[in-house]
């Protein structure tokens, strides 16, 4: 019985950012979790990525930011706001749910879907920058590339992540990285964002057994 339960948040592999409502989700004060990025460092990393995106896309012409739910969406919105501050024109921003394209769907009960919102101009001929919080196995990004394929044909696709923790299982790399964080495979990385979690932080700890 109980074949379907809503699971809040997206869960890349077994390392994904969960939700504070979930039992076992660490609060920063909890033992065994240490902060590896402060709010200041997150802010600076996003500003730098925004500048790098503008540089690489020659001022952001024809560029669309698509966040991968849950936390990638908030990061994409922050990047769009930064780009708006730097260039005067806000960048188009949306979200791309990858649940239906995941390769691990059959490993756990069916998950609730997150929102896919594409800016009105679509993605055809655009430079799409995918935004996620943690890059780990690369499987979420592969699913995102498939999902994007069904929405249209971008001119090119780039990837921005707040944290690259290594351990790739697919030939995928990020174009923009907030912080390269060497981790052991048994460790877990959690990103907390003010919009959802009440504070900005990146935490490193032991994965649940």
């Amino acid at each position, binding site marked *: 019985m*109980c*074949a*379907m339960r809503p699971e809040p948040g997206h869960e890349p592999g077994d390392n994904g950012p969960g939700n504070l409502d979930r039992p076992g989700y660490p609060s920063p004060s909890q033992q065994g979790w240490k902060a590896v990025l402060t709010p200041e460092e997150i802010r600076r990393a996003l500003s730098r990525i925004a500048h790098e995106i503008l540089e690489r896309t020659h001022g952001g012409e024809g560029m669309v930011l698509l966040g991968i739910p849950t936390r990638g969406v908030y990061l994409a919105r922050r990047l769009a706001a930064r780009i708006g501050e730097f260039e005067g024109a806000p960048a188009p921003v949306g979200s791309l749910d990858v649940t*239906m*394209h995941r390769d691990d*769907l059959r*490993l756990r009960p*069916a998950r*609730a879907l997150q929102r896919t919102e594409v800016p009105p101009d679509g993605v055809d001929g655009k430079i799409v920058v995918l935004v996620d919080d943690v890059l780990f196995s690369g499987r979420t990004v592969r699913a995102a590339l498939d999902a994007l394929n069904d929405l*249209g044909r971008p001119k090119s696709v780039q990837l921005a992540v707040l944290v690259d923790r290594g351990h790739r299982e697919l030939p995928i790399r990020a174009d923009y990285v907030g912080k390269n964080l060497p981790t052991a495979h048994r460790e877990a990385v959690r990103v907390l964002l003010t919009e959802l979690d009440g504070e900005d932080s990146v935490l490193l700890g032991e994965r649940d057994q």
Partner: protein
Amino acid sequence: MNRHLISAGDLSRDDAVLILDTAAELASVADRPIKKLPTLRGRTVVNLFYEDSTRTRTSFEAAAKRLSADVINFSAKGSSVAKGESLKDTALTLEAMGSDAIVVRHPASGAPRRLADWVSGRVINAGDGTHEHPTQALLDAFTIRQRLVGPDQRGKALDGVRVTIVGDVLHSRVARSNVLLLDTLGAEVTVVAPPTLMPWAIETWPCKASYDFDAELRKSDVVMMLRVQQERMSAAFFPTVREYRRRYGLDTGRMALLPEHAIVMHPGPMNRGVEIAAEVADSPRSTIVAQVANGVTVRMAVLYLMLGGATEETL
């Protein structure tokens, strides 16, 4: 949610809202250049139909195909059923061919429940006799939420929405499923029928009952007209079609009694000029075409949630 979808009453409020939310996200797939998702690749859905149906069968077929499942359509006509094969043997045969889910429509109330005991895959009730039609209720609830709750509908139920279901309640599996589901979602349901078409023990249903259509119309957010089911009527339940239409049909005069925002629904197929006037069916208040489109989306949501994840019993 349960392993099978037999009755709308089996769904908890959270399950029902999850299905509606999933459907709301899947609705955007219909607007995309590629109307297909890879999620159910390699799964097989059997449509096992012992009764005639156009919209339900094609709707399930479209839903399964949009999710990339393989679909086997089985209709009792022209099959071994004509040679006397039982429901159990037919189902076991189809399951031996590798079906993961059976969508079943059967003239006997309770057939899907029996089927669920025999097969190891999922069973989805697509209408059994005069008992239930849960996916119809889900698509009706989805349509009501879309029209009355609006774009910010995610996570919301139908609390306080006043729904009046009118017509042949006695024979209607659509009415049964809707009363159960809409009550679960917090709506206030009233059924209106002539005394001869009011089910026995209606007072045990989670709804109010009335014989006075006009009085109920004025306080309805939703009017759901039911089809007069000539094929299930073994006796004379009303004197003439004309008299039925005069007392329980929805014409333009009656539609004018409805509040400004109210919508008119019909599960189809309609008897134009009997329970619903053609002008009403084609008016902007009517959601009849939207209901058909929403049927595909809602069935996609049900198939995804039942077949998309792990299938182990332990989950």
